[in-house]
């Protein structure tokens, strides 16, 4: 099995493979933020902080213990979620932009903490040993990405997800309807961060080197742009948004030095022409049903 997967991965062009893995990791991260910002409507500008907590936790687990990789990721996710819940408890009382700046501030604090944290080599960064698994990393990343898609799709239509959407639409009304908004917001925050942590763990083991400076404000913004570009609160949107934005810098590479310039302009133009995101307001299930010639239910 492992041999077959290895040869499968080996048959893909390494450059293409790297883009594919970046997209896979981006999907996990974007879906996590989609739970917080898209479903619950809480703007977070510090998603990269949870990614970095995950990346460093996962790297330390690999270095210090012999846990197999899937257990490592599970531990990482849970640790990140616990940290997120502990932070979310006080700061989720804030609303709107005050919350946004608080998450931003928290992300900067986490970055500076890791820059000064002895066990993770301070600003030098950490070299991550190979993951303890026989399955090649690219396959691992994509399995996790698909699991994340399934998880968020189910969460979205569950009782929990409906409560989150109610909070997004109107927090006061949701409160009046008997939804424990504080608890649900913390849970959503923890779930989103759980996925960010796992994304960070995958990132650390795929790149095999992590540096606290990689998880700055711009990384958080990158992830947020993926979610907004795809269409807030939409799972296919988050997948498409992260695919476009995670691969755009690579496809724009032929422009070499103009790359980031075009990327910035691209963000502005996409927002001006598709303000609700690429898939905002598009019902993908309905489109698919129509494509195969079936009328969507209820119409």
């Amino acid at each position: 099995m492992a041999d077959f997967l290895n040869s499968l991965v080996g048959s893909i062009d390494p450059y293409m493979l790297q883009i594919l893995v970046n997209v896979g990791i981006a999907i996990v991260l974007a879906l996590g933020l989609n739970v917080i910002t898209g479903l619950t409507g809480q703007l977070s500008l510090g998603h990269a902080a949870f990614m970095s907590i995950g990346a460093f936790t996962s790297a330390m687990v690999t270095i210090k213990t012999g846990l197999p990789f899937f257990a490592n990721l599970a531990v990482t996710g849970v640790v990140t979620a616990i940290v997120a819940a502990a932070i979310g408890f006080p700061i989720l009382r804030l609303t709107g932009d005050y919350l946004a700046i608080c998450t931003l501030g928290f992300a900067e604090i986490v970055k500076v903490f890791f820059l000064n944290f002895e066990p993770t080599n301070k600003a030098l960064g950490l070299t991550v040993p190979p993951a303890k698994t026989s399955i090649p990393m690219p396959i691992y990343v994509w399995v996790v990405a698909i699991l994340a898609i399934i998880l968020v799709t189910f969460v979205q239509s569950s009782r929990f997800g409906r409560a989150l959407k109610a909070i997004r639409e109107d927090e006061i009304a949701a409160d009046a309807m008997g939804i424990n908004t504080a608890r649900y917001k913390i849970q959503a925050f923890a779930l989103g961060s759980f996925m960010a942590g796992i994304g960070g763990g995958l990132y650390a083991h795929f790149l095999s080197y992590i540096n606290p400076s990689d998880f700055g404000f711009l990384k958080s913004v990158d992830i947020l742009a993926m979610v907004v570009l795809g269409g807030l609160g939409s799972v296919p949107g988050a997948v498409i948004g992260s695919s476009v934005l995670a691969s755009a810098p690579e496809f724009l590479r032929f422009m070499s030095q103009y790359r980031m310039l075009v990327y910035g302009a691209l963000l502005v133009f996409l927002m001006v022409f598709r303000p609700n995101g690429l898939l905002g307001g598009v019902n993908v299930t309905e489109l698919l049903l129509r494509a195969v010639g079936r009328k969507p239910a209820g119409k």
Partner: protein
Amino acid sequence: MFLQQLVNGVALGSVYALIALGYTMVYGIITLINFAHGEIFMAGAFIGLLLVSAFKVNVFVAMAGAMVFCMLMGVIIELIAYRPLRKSSRLSALISAIGVSIFLSSLALMVFGADAKGFPDGAFPVRQIKVGTADISTLQILIIGVSAVLMMALEFIVQKTKIGKAMRATSEDYNTSALMGINVNRVISFTFALGSALAAAGGVLVGVLFNAVSFNMGLMAGLKAFAAAVLGGIGSIPGAMLGGLLLGVSEVFGVAIGYSSYRDAIAFTILVLVLLVKPTGLLGQKITKKV
């Protein structure tokens, strides 16, 4: 020692306050976190540097030139990147602002290169003046003086002029002021021009103070100034001044007592702690949500 650090802190804090004012005014009117504001600050520093080194003008003339240039820049950015998005969700406008910010900083990287540039020697005569136990440089006096003058000018414009009245009305209630015959678009353009001019002045001052102008100087300064605006209560002009000074002073004192490697975290730690106690900032008004 204490006095010395206090002066250093106030000088740094007045620059934060200058940038924070732009954030807070724009936010007060269209509730947009203008992430490109830090880049305007950076552009102001570059224009000032260009004028001083290429045209050999005086620092004050360079500052005025940078302010005019950045005014235009702010207005054009608003026209292209924010105005079409005024009716759509605030997050889209936020992403658009971030796009502008990435665009401008990479443009500066391409035009001016990656290394930090310094002002030519003698751009501003630096002398040390002894006041009690502290050595105060003429640069610090320049920074504090210019910031104070600009903030007073701003206060005058906002409180005493007709367009200032229109600004206050628009930030109070956008739709009603439009109905009252205020040209809202013009007010918004004016707000961007005003905020950008202040940021440009801040950029030139910082460029002279640290003698370094680089393409990525806008990011951290912008984030901290934004933190200052929120700390003071976003949308409130005195709040932005207070927040900027508070962050500047505490950052300098934090470094002085030996937390220099935590420098960037100090501002944000204070911000988070204050918000936990006062969720709308120091001078922000508590908004009661109506159902």
